[in-house]
């Protein structure tokens, strides 16, 4: 047997030297620059005055906090909080209801391929068409301009995606585990809860994060269903696109308010995300 190649100590077949490795490192460095540049511009912009922002050739400048003052007092943190609430409720509902349904579809083939198709179809329809029925329903139940309406609308696209992922995860769990649990005396639902769920837990985590991001990013439904008192973060950010052009400084500060917490969160979450998805969702 050949000795392992230098740098390939774990036998994974991946080397960290040689031309491909260098290319890889360059690519990552380039990726850093490409991702960082707009974010850096936004960071600097949030400290510039209107006049300084109008001139792209300004290199050194004295920072000002006026944009941050404007943004913080404009209620953007409350809007961000509302986005979080909507996301958490939507995802919780989706995961709770979706996990049971997905298990049924995966394990018992309920509804056959029609259900799987149905879930896919729900992700394709443009929101512009679904929004008016939601609006009409919201009025009928006196729920217009509330978060409840936005949550219902977000369910329409988060639920299918979460289900889709969960079906994949459940498909990957070997049936032997449940059969063993039932032989050991557990009922079907208990087997599901105590044996199967822990198996897919990292995957459920990943699906939850996905669903949350989808809800967090939505502008369209929120703009139409809750544009005023219950505005979510994207709606607030869109509000910086004013008559006087975009209020650039304040907009930059607002973007950072939405980016920094997310960046911090992804730091803790990405490992689980990768592990969770690789656990089985990405199999077809």
């Amino acid at each position: 047997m050949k000795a392992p190649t230098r740098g390939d100590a774990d036998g994974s077949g991946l080397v960290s030297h040689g031309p491909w490795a260098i290319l890889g490192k360059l690519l990552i460095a380039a990726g850093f620059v490409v991702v960082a540049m707009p974010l850096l511009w936004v960071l600097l912009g949030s400290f510039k005055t209107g006049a300084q922002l109008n001139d792209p050739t300004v290199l050194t400048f004295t920072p000002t906090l006026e944009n941050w003052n404007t943004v913080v007092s404009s209620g953007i943190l409350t809007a961000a909080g509302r986005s979080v609430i909507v996301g958490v409720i939507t995802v919780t509902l989706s995961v709770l209801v979706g996990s049971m349904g997905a298990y049924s579809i995966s394990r018992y083939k309920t509804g056959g391929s029609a259900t799987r198709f149905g879930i896919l179809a729900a992700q394709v329809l443009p929101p512009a068409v679904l929004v008016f029925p939601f609006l009409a329903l919201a009025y009928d139940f006196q729920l217009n301009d509330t978060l409840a309406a936005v949550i219902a609308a977000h369910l329409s696209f988060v639920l299918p995606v979460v289900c889709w992922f969960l079906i994949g995860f459940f498909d990957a769990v070997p049936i032997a585990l449940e059969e063993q649990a039932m032989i050991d005396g557990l009922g079907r639902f208990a087997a599901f809860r105590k044996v199967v769920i822990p198996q897919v837990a990292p995957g459920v985590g990943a699906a939850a994060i996905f669903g949350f991001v989808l809800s967090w990013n939505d502008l369209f439904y929120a703009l139409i269903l809750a544009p005023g008192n219950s505005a979510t973060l994207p709606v607030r950010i869109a509000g910086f696109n004013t008559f006087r052009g975009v209020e650039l400084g304040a907009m930059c500060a607002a973007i950072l308010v939405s980016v920094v917490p997310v960046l911090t969160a992804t730091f803790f979450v990405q490992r689980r995300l990768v592990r969770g998805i690789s656990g089985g969702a990405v199999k077809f």
Partner: protein
Amino acid sequence: MNRSFIRQVLVASSVVAALTITAACSGGSTSTKPLSSPSGNGDVAKTVSGDVHVLMEGVPDTDIVKGLLPEFNKVYPNVHVSIESLVYDQIRDKIVASFTAPKATYNLAIIDNPWMGDFAKAGFLKPLDAYVKTTPGYEYQDFAQPLRDIGTVNGKIYGVPFYNYGLGLIYRKDQMPQPPRTLADLAAQAAKLNTPSEAGIAMQPQRGYKAFEEWGNYLFAAGGSIYGSDGKVHLNTPEAKTALNTYTKMYNASAPTNSPNWAFDGALRSVSSGKSAMMVSSNWMLPTLNKKGGPAGALTGKFELAPMPGDKQVLGLWDWAVPANSETSDADWAFISWLTSKAGEKQRVIAGGAPTRNSVLTDTEVAQKGFGAGYYSTVGKILANSSPLCRGANCDEMIQAVGTELNAAIAGKKSVDDALTAAETQANKIQSS
């Protein structure tokens, strides 16, 4: 296909059918009949009370109105007006949502002129004739005629003027002592002032509203008009062709490079930083440009406003209106009538607002405390002979369609003839549907 699949499809289809039938039965079941009838009496008692909630655009005039609220409350102490301000794009959808709701979120509204026809026809607004006629000292005829025409649909008044945004030519008086009086003159002046460091004219050919709004002035300058005497859109005319050819040539010769998508702020930035010598813009941009501490920086005070060559301009107007589902009509009218009365408007204009009444335009005190007699007399000329882009139904869509064709011609994607023919056909189709 096996039987199980067919069975599943049948089940799915019957579910969809059931839902569709349910939807059909429940759709349109909400009625929005007005809940309280307004007194219709314009002489509203000073003790009238109400919570008036209105959505306005984040523009200077809104700030001025907010500043006038304490004065208003001295006269009507029990009417509480709360003003929410948003970006233009978000306003219309929100007020439409409010109009169609069982309970109004906004019981007072400002309406942009393209929406007036559609909203009045859809029954979203209350007719204001009774109020206007019975308000003592209101003098509705004092508003410039083109402005009154916009608020009147099918013979009824649905809106009274708030502030205008008629267009005019804003230029540097240190670079051009006399404004051009003909379209050809304008083109020549722009070409003359065009240097490598400064463009002759900042143009706003952005697809849709902006292109049409700007080009409309060129059309009028060429002696043309948008509507014919039969009430239909006629753009396939020699004047329109001249106007579009001139516009396109001017864009290619004298506009800043890479500006085919420019709209309001692109042109403003260019002119205020001295990179362009003139622009066609809202008449009240002049005070903003000449204001100390404003966007013009070192160029403050060097700008002048003139009517467009040919003396006919494109008009834009915001109206005050009372939604049909408002429950505070009397309080609404108290506010509207106070603000748009001669005295109220005078205060607003002195504070920097854009005028709509002839008496205010010729008032010496306003000239003194405001922006000078010359400015107001120019605005008066602009308003007297101006015309909006669209009358009647489906204006938003009609303006978009025409503006798209114009932008295609300017970008060189369509010939002038093709663009104008297409614009005319589509505009008529849209307005008759």
